[in-house]
């Protein structure tokens, strides 16, 4: 057990932070600050346990024997022939498919009912990569981590593959018979006893289907439930306006922003757009000299809080009082609730902020987090009104939800009805309520009282287990559908591939319970939109009659020839079956594509021409959304009596040893639906860098109070964290790990949902603890009354990358305030030149990179919000394997780009956190190259530091000599070469690496080569912006810029001339091609002076 002196000494730590001179006072972790003997040892070992210990089950001797044998066999096997390969051409070549050329199709992923528009890359019919759809208003060409990783779900071999009745395999017709019986009995009673439970419905087609069912059977009911639903936002709008609204924010118009625990930069509807707009107002270049200013009050540190100019950690019980104080100061009538508890000790902070906000009337935003109470939402609406923001920076539209409602209440009603025996048939479309319903409702137990239970889901999960019928769901890349963007834009979901495991979509299952049985998802969708788009002669619309049965293969399957390529170079059609070049003609659900010439494509959008449905429909499918369907802004007035409704609702402040508890969705596995996604599981969570697990988040002081610790273990690699029992409302989480998080307010414990899955699949089963087991319906997000006790035990399986690949406390992060930056002259701020030794200090001959392109990258640390999308995009683009928690613990994670987090200031209340994405720097004087004994890493003429996998013998000297620690070694056979579906997923343009070779960021060389070849064929130079790396493409804030640094007009060359440009560890004379732009913040002098 760890000895006392190794524990973090907080008093000593504070002194160290204050006394630090190096690195501008930035630190990565509490352990680093504590700077114990163990920590130093940990850092000095590059790979903590690998080098010096052999703790695999196989003994060293056995290993050597095996190695000897395999070496001999390897020599022999080298003489064998490569097995002959087959070439399988099409029988009928589809016109638009050119072997070797990828096609892009517009589609969309929805999360919580909100779409992210996507362009899915298809290599010979296999979707391989997802990019944002630049024209989609909720994407603007970028995606979040969930959309990036969702392609792994498509190919997940753990997905449910067969229709089951009580664990027995049954045919679809068997289900239809059963459903028909239930339906007949329900019809006889006008639908009484028939219930549908869905996640948030925004899909226009699904809504129309449901409405048709409810028209036929008025007694049937819909319930919606999502554990991370936006019920509070809905209730807040009802409180303030008496009607449901959708709130949109115009961050491009806002100078001052006050976020009330809203993580609008990295999650939630519209976050991609908000992050882009927000950061565009913080770029101090191109003649722009001012920045917006962000004030954040929040509980647990989020990415938004980390980027704030001023952040105040508040306990949930203090939140409403603080907001009321701010609202009062802004002149909002507070009515019955009054000032509440007031802003307490932070009154001065609130006053300063209020003055600042008032100076930006009509150009400010107050944005409440979805998890905040309805009262806070109502107060935020009132404050925005008082500041004159409504109609300028804050817009209201009708809700995007088809059936806006309080989802917790909806589920509560369903449970009550189930208990009362009023539910005979329950159809659950997606979702996993048995796992994620509030614990106090006892959903699972009530569910068993329903006579017929049907569950449609991607996985055979906890809910499927309790249902009679489990129907495998088709992934969104396998089925037709529609949804809405954050602004209401109707978005078409187009399949890229026929269902791998024969799944069905929600539309198809719902059709079974309507009068349109057995219609394909495509027909249902097209029929709905033909009705919507028919404003003139909708000649292309198929006649639609109720009860039409189309069991034969649908017509669109036979019309691939009708499709053509498009203006943008990515044409849209349906899916060929998986088999690469195989000519499987089942182009299930093939659709569409645009007209041959750009002109017709554009003109069909105009309503002036007689609306030809076929053209409009093809354009909508091609573009991925229906034009001009964003919901119009509407005027809503505050209810006259709203203030009287807002009695204080905050939980009472904690008494004695009580703690406040906060529930949040996990930044990686969300509400648990992504639990079986290895990319997301292994993604280091922003700020904590925990992978594969969740933990109780406590502030350093609170943890100290209970004697809970995070330690570096004796082995020099283990991170040992205390285990604690958490009791809340009579329910207990036993012996769960504790993580000490800087910036967490004292007396608050935060738990993340989505872990502790029992039936997620091989990846997600049994990881972490299930926080839903203590979550209750009355306080889904925060409450008082949690108790923690120290078990005295330690958890040694926590895999966190926080300490991995440290750059030994050198000056890594550079940050200035805007005022300082503008004050200083150009010369004083050429930080890159400060320490940089000249080329003459190198032993190696100089190479002239001027004759070719010189690829380079800049990463703007001002703009980076630490969302991790680049990490997953890189993983998807470059066939990077998942290694598993055991290997992550040994610092063997394979991500080519990592996002380092640096805190600044006091460990309890860090004043800032900076994010720093670190890919390979492609040094011109690369330290990795001279140490390689086999020339496996060398330079090419354009300055890329290339890795030759075939030459690599695995000495790892290069990694040892890399000051940035960006090289990754395949210690074991991490790549899954055998699972057939994963073979379909891989990017065919990138070598798949096996055991024993080093790999690292290539600057997406496959994309460079494609652009180079295309430009050379056309006899022109590569244009700026023609090569876009995967990380750059996905970055919501455009923090990453890549291009030819020799082209003085290129964006990257311009940025490299910026005063903010600096090379990481440039004093080592590595001449990195990747450079950073220092971080700028715009603090309010009245606050920063005082703090």
């Amino acid at each position, binding site marked *: 057990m760890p000895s006392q002196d190794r524990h973090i000494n907080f008093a000593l730590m504070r002194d160290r932070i204050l006394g630090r001179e190096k690195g501008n006072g930035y630190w990565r972790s509490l352990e680093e600050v504590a700077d114990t003997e163990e920590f130093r040892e940990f850092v000095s070992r590059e790979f903590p346990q690998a080098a010096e210990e052999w703790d695999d089950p196989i003994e060293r001797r056995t290993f050597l024997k095996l190695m000897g044998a395999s070496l001999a066999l390897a020599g022999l096997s080298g003489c064998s022939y490569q097995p002959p390969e*087959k*070439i399988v051409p099409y029988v009928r070549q589809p016109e638009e498919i050119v072997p070797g*050329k990828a096609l892009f199709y517009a589609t969309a992923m929805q999360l919580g009912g909100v779409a992210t528009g996507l362009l899915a890359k298809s290599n010979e019919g296999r979707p391989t990569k997802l990019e944002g759809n630049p024209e989609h208003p909720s994407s603007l060409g970028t995606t979040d981590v969930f959309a990036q990783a969702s392609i792994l779900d498509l190919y997940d071999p753990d997905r449910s593959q067969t229709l089951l009745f009580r664990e027995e395999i049954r045919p679809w017709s068997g289900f239809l018979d059963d459903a028909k019986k239930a339906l007949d009995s329900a019809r006889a009673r006008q639908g009484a006893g028939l219930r549908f439970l869905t996640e948030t419905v925004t899909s226009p087609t699904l809504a129309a289907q449901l409405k048709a069912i409810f028209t036929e059977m008025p007694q049937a009911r819909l319930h919606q439930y999502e554990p991370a639903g936006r019920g509070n936002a809905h209730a807040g709008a009802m409180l303030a306006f008496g009607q449901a609204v959708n709130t949109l924010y115009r961050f491009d118009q806002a100078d001052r922003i006050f976020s009330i625990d809203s993580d609008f930069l990295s999650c939630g509807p519209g976050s991609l757009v908000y992050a882009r707009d927000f950061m565009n107002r913080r770029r101090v270049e191109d003649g722009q000299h001012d920045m917006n200013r962000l004030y954040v009050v929040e509980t647990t540190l989020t990415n938004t809080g980390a980027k704030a100019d001023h952040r105040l950690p508040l306990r949930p019980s203090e939140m409403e009082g603080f907001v009321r104080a701010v609202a009062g100061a802004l002149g909002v009538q507070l009515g019955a609730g009054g000032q509440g508890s007031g802003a307490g000790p932070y009154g001065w902070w609130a006053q300063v902020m209020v003055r600042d906000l008032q100076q930006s009337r009509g150009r400010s935003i107050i944005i409440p987090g979805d998890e905040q109470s309805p009262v806070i939402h109502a107060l935020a609406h009132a404050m925005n009104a008082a500041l004159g923001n409504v109609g300028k920076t804050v817009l209201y539209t009708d809700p995007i939800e088809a059936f806006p409602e309080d989802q917790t209440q909806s589920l509560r009603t369903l449970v009550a009805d189930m208990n009362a025996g009023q539910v005979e048939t329950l159809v659950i479309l997606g979702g996993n309520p048995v796992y994620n319903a509030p614990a106090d409702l006892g959903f699972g137990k009530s569910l068993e009282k329903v006579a017929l239970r049907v569950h449609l889901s991607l996985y055979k999960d906890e809910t499927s287990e309790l249902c009679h019928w489990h129907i495998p769901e088709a992934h969104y890349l396998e089925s037709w559908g529609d949804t809405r963007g954050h602004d209401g834009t109707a978005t078409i979901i187009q399949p890229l591939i026929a269902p791998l495991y024969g799944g069905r979509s929600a539309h198809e299952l719902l059709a079974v319970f309507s009068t349109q049985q057995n219609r394909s998802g495509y027909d249902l969708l097209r029929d709905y939109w033909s009705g919507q788009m028919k404003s003139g002669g909708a000649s292309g619309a198929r006649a639609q009659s109720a009860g039409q049965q189309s069991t034969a293969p649908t017509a669109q399957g036979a019309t691939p020839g009708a499709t053509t390529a498009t203006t943008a170079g990515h044409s849209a059609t349906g899916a060929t079956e998986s088999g690469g070049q195989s*000519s499987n003609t089942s182009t299930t659900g093939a659709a569409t594509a645009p007209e041959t010439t750009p002109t017709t494509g554009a003109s069909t959008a105009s309503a002036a021409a007689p609306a030809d449905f076929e053209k409009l429909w093809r354009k909508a499918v091609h573009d991925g959304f229906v034009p001009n369907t964003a919901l119009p802004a509407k005027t809503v007035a505050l209810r006259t009596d709203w203030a009287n409704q807002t009695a204080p609702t905050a939980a009472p402040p904690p008494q004695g040893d009580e703690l406040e508890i906060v529930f949040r969705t996990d930044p990686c596995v969300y509400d648990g639906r992504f639990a079986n996604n290895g990319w997301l599981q292994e993604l280091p969570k922003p700020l904590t860098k925990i992978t594969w697990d969740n933990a109780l988040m406590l502030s350093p002081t609170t943890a100290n109070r209970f004697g809970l610790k995070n330690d570096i273990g004796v082995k020099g690699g283990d991170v040992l964290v205390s285990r604690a029992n958490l009791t809340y409302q009579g329910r207990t989480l036993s012996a769960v790990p504790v993580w000490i998080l800087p910036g967490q307010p004292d007396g608050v414990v935060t738990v993340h949902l989505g872990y502790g899955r029992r039936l997620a699949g091989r990846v997600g089963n049994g990881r972490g603890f299930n926080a839903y087991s203590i979550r209750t319906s009355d306080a889904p997000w925060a409450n008082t009354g949690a108790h923690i006790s120290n078990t005295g035990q330690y958890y040694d399986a926590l895999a966190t990358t926080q300490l991995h690949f440290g750059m030994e406390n050198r000056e890594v992060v550079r940050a200035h305030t805007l005022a300082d930056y503008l004050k200083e002259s150009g010369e004083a701020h050429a930080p890159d030149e400060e320490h940089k030794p000249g080329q003459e200090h190198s032993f190696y001959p100089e190479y002239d990179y001027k004759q070719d392109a010189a690829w380079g990258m800049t990463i703007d640390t001002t703009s980076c919000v630490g969302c991790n999308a680049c990490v997953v995009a890189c993983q998807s683009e470059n066939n990077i394997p998942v290694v598993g928690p055991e290997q992550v613990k040994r610092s063997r994670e394979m991500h080519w780009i990592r996002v380092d987090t640096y805190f600044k200031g006091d460990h309890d209340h860090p004043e800032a956190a900076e994010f720093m994405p670190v890919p390979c720097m492609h040094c011109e004087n690369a330290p990795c190259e001279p140490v390689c004994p086999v020339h496996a890493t060398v330079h090419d003429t*354009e300055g*890329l530091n*290339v890795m030759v996998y075939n030459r690599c013998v695995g000495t790892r000297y290069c990694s040892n000599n890399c000051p940035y620690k960006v090289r990754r070694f395949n210690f074991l056979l991490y790549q899954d070469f055998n699972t057939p579906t994963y073979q379909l997923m891989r990017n065919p*343009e990138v070598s798949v690496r096996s055991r024993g070779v080093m790999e690292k960021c290539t600057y997406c060389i496959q994309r460079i080569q494609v652009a180079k070849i295309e430009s050379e064929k056309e006899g022109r130079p590569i244009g700026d912006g023609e090569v876009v790396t995967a990380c750059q493409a996905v970055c919501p804030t455009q923090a990453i810029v890549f291009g030819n640094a020799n082209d003085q007009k290129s964006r990257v060359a311009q940025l490299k001339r910026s005063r903010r440009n600096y090379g990481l560890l440039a004093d080592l004379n590595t001449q990195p091609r990747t450079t950073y732009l220092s971080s700028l913040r715009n603090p309010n002098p009245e606050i920063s002076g005082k703090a």
Partner: protein
Amino acid sequence: MPQIFHHSTNFLARLSIFGAVFILVAAVWVLAEINRSSWNTGQWTERQQPVQFSHKHHSGDDGIDCRYCHTSVETSSSAGMPSTQTCMNCHSQIWADSPYLEPVRESWRSGKPIEWTRVHDLPDYSYFNHSIHVNKGVGCSTCHGQVDEMPLMYQASSLQMEWCLECHREPERFVRPRSEVFNMAWRKENKTAAQIAEGKKLVADNHIRGPLALTSCSTCHR
């Protein structure tokens, strides 16, 4: 006391030392030659195909252009293989009853593709792109040989990296005018001084990169 070793032992010692060196060098040489041999590379070996398709007949006798079947050779990394439909364009009319073409008709009837045996099989870590070679003036026959004289297709080159590098180091030796790319009869290599001079001019005109860029690892490997 007599000598333990006879005087000739010195010779034996020298012989075994030099012999060892010789054997070592010889062994390396033999291995290298085995590696280069067609036994290893598969060069010159005709592959049996499901249909006895003759390039000699179609390309040589009938004069059908390469691009009629290999449609994407100028635009894509892959030259493209003809679909069954391409065969049937002609063979629904001529030789429509030939027993040799039964597999083609079977494929056309059943919708099941013909599975050809790959002749030119580069390792997966080499990313060869047909279109850029064709556009820069590398002829089909430079790599694939006199296809119009091959009744059954075989691999005319070793496809080893040293063979690739011959041209990547000195493209002027192999490059030809773009108009002659699909000409099977064009000379295999520029040998005379005049031909080399013409090659150099083509290298400049077609903006073919210098040998340093062409031999960068990243040109072919990713």
